[in-house]
């Protein structure tokens, strides 16, 4: 394997890592800040992809981005509304919306489970044309992915420092204090999920347009992949200030894709991606719990061996 193909694989991993990091940043807001595990993520990711593709195919490449994000906001609003105003458990609300979105997504794609954008003008082809005859002519996907990620990281860093951002963090951090601190938890949950789902949809929209096609399964397993990336990012930059943690989250997403790419090189079949992400999530979430059980476990063994006086 020569240097060029390694570089191209690396760039591929970087692009995918950056584009999916938008979903990871969405979970950073909903899961890490608001303490809501948003299981509508898969459907919302696909929604962003289908809406973005449909609008681009209709001849509005620039409009496709805000349209996808608006669809994400709507989806997030419904999930939040179900859990704050309709008395539905937050996990269940996500699952219900996710299921409903399957039909919506097929409908958006015009009663089809696949849309092709080979000849469609998208933000990527626009930039490709604009960069023709420059040294960056082949890096157009990377540039857009990087730009989107930087914008979202900056937005989140500023947003979480505002009073609204602080109120959202307090809602997740100590729900008991919220109503007695004149914060309306219904409002903060709705705003938080609307914002986070707009990023998820943006992520889906960009992935679909960069690979020039969208199918109904494009978002399947995204929530687990994103959680795995989030938790990997937390290992490196889990503490400290919000901007640093947000950057850590992006790094986590890139690291996840790099590991995955390397594993593919070692002949791991591509379909293993989801199993690997599941295992990473299991390890990352259960490790602190299991670690806290070690003293208890040791003592049980010691007692069984009769080494400790009862």
């Amino acid at each position, binding site marked *: 394997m020569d240097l060029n193909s390694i570089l191209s694989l690396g760039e591929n991993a970087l692009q995918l890592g950056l584009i999916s990091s938008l979903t990871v940043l969405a979970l950073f807001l909903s899961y890490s800040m608001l303490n809501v595990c948003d299981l509508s993520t898969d459907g919302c990711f696909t929604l962003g992809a289908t809406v973005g593709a449909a609008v681009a195919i209709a001849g509005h490449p620039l409009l496709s981005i805000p349209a996808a994000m608006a669809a994400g906001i709507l989806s997030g609003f419904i999930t939040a509304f179900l859990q704050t105003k309709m008395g539905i458990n937050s996990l269940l609300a996500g699952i219900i919306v996710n299921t409903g979105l399957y039909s919506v997504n097929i409908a958006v794609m015009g009663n089809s489970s696949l849309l092709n954008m080979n000849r469609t003008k998208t933000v990527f082809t626009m930039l490709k044309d604009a960069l023709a005859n420059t040294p960056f002519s082949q890096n157009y996907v990377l540039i857009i992915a990087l730009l989107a990620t930087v914008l979202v990281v900056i937005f989140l860093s500023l947003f979480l420092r505002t009073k609204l951002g*602080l109120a959202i963090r307090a809602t997740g951090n*100590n729900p008991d204090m919220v109503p*007695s601190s004149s914060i*309306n938890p219904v409002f903060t949950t709705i705003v938080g999920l609307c914002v986070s789902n707009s990023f998820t949809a943006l992520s889906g929209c960009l992935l679909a347009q960069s690979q020039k096609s969208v199918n109904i399964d494009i978002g399947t397993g995204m929530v687990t992949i994103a959680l795995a990336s989030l938790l990997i990012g937390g290992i490196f930059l889990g503490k400290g200030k919000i901007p640093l943690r947000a950057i850590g989250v992006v790094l986590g997403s890139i690291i996840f894709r790099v590991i995955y790419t390397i594993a593919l090189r070692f002949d791991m079949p591509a379909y293993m991606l989801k199993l690997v992400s599941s295992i990473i999530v299991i390890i990352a979430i259960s490790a602190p719990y299991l670690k806290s059980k070690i003293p208890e476990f040791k003592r049980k063994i010691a007692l069984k061996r009769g080494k400790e006086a009862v």
Partner: protein
Amino acid sequence: MLTLSHISKTFNPGTVNAKTALSDLSFHADKGDFITIIGANGAGKSTLFNAISGSFMTDSGRILLDGEDITLMPEFKRAKQIGRLFQDPMLGSAPGMSIEENLALAAGHGGWLSHISKKDKEKFRERLSLLEMGLEDRMKQPVGLLSGGQRQALTLMMATFTPPKLLLLDEHTAALDPGTAEKVLSLTREIVSENHLTCLMITHNMQSALNLGNRTVMMNNGSIIYDISGDERKNLKVNDLLLKFKECVGKELDNDRMLLSE
């Protein structure tokens, strides 16, 4: 200032677990009143606070605060006018956020998109120094690192940052060690008197119930059974209170945390 007229609340109505927590309770507090509330376990003291602050809607009756009918107002809106402290110091602040960020939430001014300004920070620092706990030098640290007493003092500061119309203290020093409890209590006294706050305080300490404030209310079975203020209260001893309870209820006052003297 605060008027409750004929409020009632029954939990689990129509079941075997039905419990009348407040029954036709009427009560009035004047502006600047500092009222201590005592009573046996399950007398409805905390339920009364929950009703006033809006944790639940009462089944009947009206609640007026400063002339405004707040009977149907949701809890988070009432919280703008009512400060509240619980027995558990962990309930009043977000452990994962810094002291500064917690105070910014409590300070309550500025729009949703406003940031913490330099001026805000100076103000926070100045207020925190009044606690004499060194918190003004730890403003960037997460609240989770504070001790229970420090956290309760911070919560007190947050609840009164913008002086509320009404301050509700639900045994807010009961979970603290005696030294810290004394400190938090004296801070409470200072803050209440400086800002001329109207304050209701539940306590299990009979002596401080008589020493603090200008009026004492005794509750039993969701009603007020004894209400005393003025000269009559000044001459009252803890023993008199106990006798009074027996006279009204017909049995000994029974509260597992009740302290009969200092």
